[in-house]
């Protein structure tokens, strides 16, 4: 039982991180029907900027006196940077291709992903960038079950971000405009919604969430590297599809499911086949519900 609870905690932490990344995929997909392969790189860039910022604060000595302020600042800086990066990427690599076939944009995204991850490698080096692990070192022990402060911090921050995003999308005017743009770009232009700005905003929000996930990743695992975006990127993409791509609630549920399946598959059946379980669940769900768990009936679109 204790084993189960421990694995449950592990699963929620991992699933939360996947959910944050998956949101970016799903939002971008919802608005311009593009699988943004470079999204994983935003995640990695977020991790890097967070590491750089924290190292800088430590260097000037603020880190010891005001750790919480520094951490908050690092989150802000990194989310802003990634939003800035994502807007740039969108303008350069995707916007000119919006009228072309979707495969062209897909490949452009793939190229951008390779470019960004190698760009990070060249500017930041091939070695791991270290996060200060002194923050949140403590943990609660309930018999065999361990719950670290870091896990609590990650899960609660993830929950806050998800709730915030939900409020933004479903309660505000901007969120309404985003949903409208996703459904019909021509019509939203006819009611004075600038689709270009909304698309930029979507990219920015998605990348910002990925950046937050990147910092949490760095804090949790201790370091970041230029190639960390790839695997979580694919898992998060799977999570987005599992939940029904284009659906924000779906992405959250999908992320949690993928994280749980991975942890429980590894913990109870076999750790080397854990990715297989994640993908089998995905395939099984899609076989019976071809539009994902929360997906609406999308139009008959193919490559």
């Amino acid at each position, binding site marked *: 039982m204790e*084993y189960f609870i*421990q*694995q449950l905690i*592990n699963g929620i*932490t*991992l699933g939360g991180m996947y959910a944050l990344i998956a949101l970016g995929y799903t939002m971008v997909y919802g608005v311009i029907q593009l699988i943004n392969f470079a999204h994983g790189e935003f995640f990695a860039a977020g991790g890097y900027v967070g590491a750089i910022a924290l190292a800088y604060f430590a260097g000037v000595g603020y880190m010891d006196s005001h750790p919480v302020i520094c951490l908050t600042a690092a989150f802000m800086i990194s989310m802003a940077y990634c939003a800035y990066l994502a807007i740039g990427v969108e303008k350069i690599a995707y916007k000119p291709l919006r009228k072309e076939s979707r495969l062209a944009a897909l490949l452009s995204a793939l190229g951008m992903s390779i470019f960004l991850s*190698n760009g990070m*490698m060249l500017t930041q080096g*091939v*070695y*791991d960038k*270290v996060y200060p*692990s002194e923050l949140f070192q403590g*943990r609660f*022990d309930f018999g*065999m079950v*361990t719950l*670290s402060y*870091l896990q609590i911090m990650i899960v609660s921050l993830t929950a806050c971000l998800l709730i915030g995003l939900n409020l933004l999308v479903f309660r505000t005017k901007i969120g309404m405009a985003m949903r409208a743009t996703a459904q019909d770009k021509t019509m939203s232009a006819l009611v004075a919604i600038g689709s270009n700005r909304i698309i930029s905003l979507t990219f920015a929000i998605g990348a910002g969430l990925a950046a937050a996930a990147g910092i949490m*990743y760095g804090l949790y*695992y*201790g*370091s970041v*590297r230029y*190639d*960390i975006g*790839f*695997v*979580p990127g694919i898992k998060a993409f799977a999570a987005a599809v599992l939940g029904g791509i284009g659906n924000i609630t779906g992405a959250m549920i999908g992320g949690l499911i993928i994280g749980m399946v*991975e*942890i*429980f*598959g*590894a*913990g109870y059946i076999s*750790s*080397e086949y*854990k*990715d297989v379980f994640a993908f089998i669940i995905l395939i099984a769900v899609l076989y019976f519900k071809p539009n994902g768990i929360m997906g609406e009936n999308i139009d008959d679109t193919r490559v």
Partner: protein
Amino acid sequence: MKKRILSIMAMGLILVPFLFATVSAKTLKIGSMSPLTGPYASDGTDIKNGVWTAIKVFEEAGGVPGYDKIEFFPQDTACDPRQAVAAANKLLNLGVVGVVGAYCSSSTIPSSEVLDEESIPMITPASTHQDVTDRGLEYMFRMCGRDDDQASAAAKFMKEALGAKTIFIVDDKTTYSQGLADGVEKACEKLGIKILGHEHVNQGDKDFSAILTMAKLKNADIFYMSLQGYSSAAMMTLQAKRLGLKSQIVTQDAVFQPKYMEVAKYASEGVYLTYGLTDPSTPEYKAFEERYVPKYGAIAAYATYAYDSATALLKAIKAAGSTEPAKIKAELMKLDYQGVAKHVKFRANGDSGSSYIAYKVVDDKFVPYWEPANGLIK
């Protein structure tokens, strides 16, 4: 427009092989193969830097008679067998006389076959898999140790020095890590250490919480971590400590990288690892340190081996006085000198012997802790 692009591309494609075919006579060409991109880029870069240093040192010491300079061609394998073979063929085309590389055993094996066909000596600084030299290739040499030697040394260390009765093994399913983990498992059985579990993770995994929870439940004396690359090992160590794993952590030579302590931080304290005996007090090591550290930073696992590999190769060429493969091989076999990482002396199958000892991480440094012959080092 279309036609123009096509014709330019076609011309480019036709020119490619010719461009690389130009060979001038007065330079000695040495190649290296290692992953400069991809997940193992850090280790690959260390290898490249090690070879560079060796060439610089050798040139300053007078170089090879009859040649104006030594040219160095580092090639990227990305740890992908196809690219490794392409790189090997590229080096052949460039007319290199010897190759240092590759890193991943799965790259070394197919590319060595290509090089062996043309009788180009290849010295690997990092591929520890048995099959690298056990295939009977004539021009395949190895500077580092062998997995089977390391495994038995590790098992002996755990039994004798740590008094282990139970062990939990994790590997990450690469040629290197799995071969080593299997070897450790066998050696432990022989010594009577009970195996409580042998789990695998996949390459590129970052989250190990599931198997660490399992290991915590099993609570073995030893948690043996066999991972390719220091980075995932550091992450696993950190996560293990956070989760409250009480077992002793023992790991292996791929982790011998100062960055390990930087990433794992407090968690790395007290971790044991096996690594070939490198005596940092020898003048050779000191000299290497003086040249390497200011330029590339802290010395890592494969830089020293790469340095020794390149030096051995150059020494053999100098002694042979020609670039004829058979002569170089004969001279390589004759070598017997103190290198940076180890005493260099090749055996008939191309191995240079293993000298694994155990290190312990103390105050963010690898400190020699135990050796098979004499027990604890004090």
